[in-house]
């Protein structure tokens, strides 16, 4: 059998992200996680919306889909549900996911669609050159908040737990080893896996963002039990510190499993073909 290396997961295109951008870390961790899991390149679909992070599929030697802003999860849902043979990974920015795409996460999560969703969260709109996002800290001036950002920030981890996502984790793009490990676990997890990435935008949030993330974050200790959603919710208080690792995880039936039951019911005469017409459709 073919052995896949990091090189196989790379495309011929060189990333055009700014030097120092957090997305490089995510990309590298993803290469390594896939190598670790040895998933054939032609059985992977990397789906994205629009944003700096959304350029990632173009740098993959797998199948990639770079759609429109905010719709990464619907595309990924369709791609997964239409052919369960493939590994589908959705990637995108905080604007793409938490702002314009906010309506989709809850539904992919509660249905437990068996995909992995990686959000490159830099707390800014990178591609459009520096406007506020739902995770831009209070008070910060951006292109659209000339006098400082107002309105409380969005808490992705707590929200995803409330949405009943079955795997909720956070990583820091600067730690490629840890990120590789968590991404691999997320891909392996059966059901909807969510990975929030602290990913600095050196251009529009400044280089300090690395320090900021480093100072605020800590690794979840081994002793932590991620299976209780109330504890996990409590843990993910963003006014405090940023936990790195798997914050919540609990297995439950996936949507494809439930749909398979539906098909069985339908085939077992659950429905009679009213007009005889449908006989024509049998192969």
């Amino acid at each position, binding site marked *: 059998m073919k052995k896949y290396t990091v090189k196989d997961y790379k495309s011929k295109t060189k990333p055009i992200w700014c030097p120092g951008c957090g997305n490089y870390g995510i990309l590298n961790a993803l290469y390594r996680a896939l190598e670790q899991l040895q998933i054939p390149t032609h059985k992977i679909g990397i789906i994205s919306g*629009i944003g700096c992070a959304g350029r990632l599929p*173009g740098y993959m030697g797998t*199948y990639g889909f770079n759609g429109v802003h905010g719709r990464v999860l619907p595309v990924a849902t*369709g*791609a997964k549900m239409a*052919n369960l043979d493939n590994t589908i990974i959705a990637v995108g920015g905080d604007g793409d996911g938490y702002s314009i795409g906010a309506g989709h996460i809850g539904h992919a999560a509660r249905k437990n669609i068996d995909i992995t969703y990686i959000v490159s969260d830099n707390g800014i709109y990178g591609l459009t050159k520096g406007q506020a996002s739902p995770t831009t800290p209070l008070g910060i001036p951006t292109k659209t908040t000339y006098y400082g950002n107002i309105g409380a920030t969005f808490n992705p981890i707590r929200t995803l737990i409330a949405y009943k996502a079955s795997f909720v984790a956070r990583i820091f793009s600067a730690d490629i080893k840890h990120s590789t490990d968590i991404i691999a676990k997320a891909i392996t997890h059966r059901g909807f896996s969510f990975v929030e990435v602290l990913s600095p935008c050196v251009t529009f949030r400044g280089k300090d963002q690395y320090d900021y993330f480093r100072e605020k974050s800590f690794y979840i200790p081994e002793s932590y039990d991620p299976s209780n959603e109330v504890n996990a919710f409590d843990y993910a208080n963003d006014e405090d510190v940023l936990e790195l690792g798997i914050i919540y995880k609990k297995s439950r039936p996936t949507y494809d499993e439930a749909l398979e039951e539906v098909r069985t019911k339908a085939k077992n005469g659950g429905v009679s073909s009213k007009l005889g017409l449908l006989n024509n459709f049998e192969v």
Partner: protein
Amino acid sequence: MSRNNIVIGIAGSGGDGIITAGELLVQAASSDGLFVFMLKSYGPQIRGGESSIKLRMSEIPIASQGDKLDVLVVLNWKDFLRFKSELLLEDNVVIVSDSDDKFPEEDIPIDKNKMKKWYKIPITEIAKESSGTKQSKNIVTLGIISELFNLPKEALKRSIKKKFSNKGQKVVDSNIIALNAGQNHVKNSLTKIDPLEFEYKEHEPRLVMEGNEAIAYGAIYAGLDFFAGYPITPSSEIMQWIGRFLPKYGGTIMQMEDELASINAIIGASFVGKKSMTATSGPGISLMNEGIGLASMTELPVVIVNVQRGGPSTGLPTKTEQSDLMQAIWGSHGDSPRVVIAPADVEDCFDSTVLAFYIAEKYQMPVILLSDGFIGHRKESINPAHLKDKKYGFKKINSRKTPTKEELKDYKRFKITKDGISPISYPGIEGGEHQTAGIEHDEYGYPSSDVDVHKKMTLKRYAKYEAIKKDFSFERFYGPDDAEIGVIAWGSTKGAVKEAVKKANEKGIKVQAIIPQIIYPFLMEPFKKFLKNKKKVIIVEMSYSGQFTRYLRGFINFGKHGVTTFPYRITGGAPFTVEEILNKITEAAEKK
């Protein structure tokens, strides 16, 4: 007077079971091989509001609902009033009404001098007496009219048995009793004085469907793999039928959180190589326009059904209109090619859906199927034999061209070809890995903002139109080629136009109609043929802003063809009548 073609209207309150009565009659008539055509209409209430049906049955093929009622049945006069513009009466109409409904006679807007006969029958009372509940009013009514006008009696009994069988023998029995009671009342207590008598021979049973149902079947027939949608009137039944049947064939159906999700989910499914579809109505399309543009740019096959309703905005959800035409063609930003197909009747819903998949898969682009509430919700006979003999049959729609081994060596997903069609690979195909993008890209799929690349790729995407124009023609002409008067119409308007053209020619006005099925890209050839002898052309559409007229003028220089156009554009709500169109033809004929 005996006849083999009759139009019946029934109106009453929601609790009266009007719709059930209509459906039973339709069922009965078609099992006796008659052609049927039935419209339903409701008030704004979800429950307890007014409702009505208009049902035409005939031994010979029919294309429209029939303009006016030969028979009007009223269970409640107040409710009838809400439908009086939808239920127009023939001068010599026969009326059957419930004498237990104490509505003041002077408020009933009927010209009593003209009507042939008014039977006032204690329907409620008969119901209560026979089956013990006034709930069976509708069945009693069926008994009455089947006896009065010689409608399919035995078949009606069979329909009732079938319909209620899953509710137990007791329910079946009590309904049969009610039916008999109605029939007996006519036989025993009435003097039948009107000469209206329906007469027909039994034929092979026919299939009856609603347009939405036919689209669902057509999609499954064409090999649908994946459906994602969001409910909306008047399209929801498509998803509902598919939800019942598709899982049987191993397919996947998902109710999504909204229309943005629906269109993008089917794009995702198409990306992994599957035949996929969504269905919605105007408001949903307005939300899908970005996604439709994405499918156009990524050259992914998807079928989008729009069962049009009255607009704009929330508009008239339960009423029909043809005012989403321009949006179907131009709704997305940018130059974003797509194909627009319009079914013209229920049977054509099946055909057009199959065709839509064929085109989508072959030319790798979004296809919009533009139906409307009139077709979607009406019941109409279709020819079962016809369905078996499709040009593009099930499983034969493997029209998506995948790359050869040779092509995979240096795989260009968006390879420039003469007909614009590039071999498409998808996850699962080794060596065909690539990125598909909504951003402008080169032949490999790499993003590019180069002006020349954009030009080349735009031309490539539009080259498909030329291929389609070559590959398809259509032959939906009615009337003689050498007519100087023409009618151009589209979609559900076909029925009334077809019958009006027939009548006009019978009356000695030579006129020909053309009803395209592929609306966009514009196929000039058939129109050239059509326009050859025309001097005056009536353009019929249910859009006040005249979208079809503007569209046609954009592509046909009528002045150059020496043709004067007579746009006939009305606001939506009620379907066209044959008479309206006939009048326009006569007017045009008389104009100097």
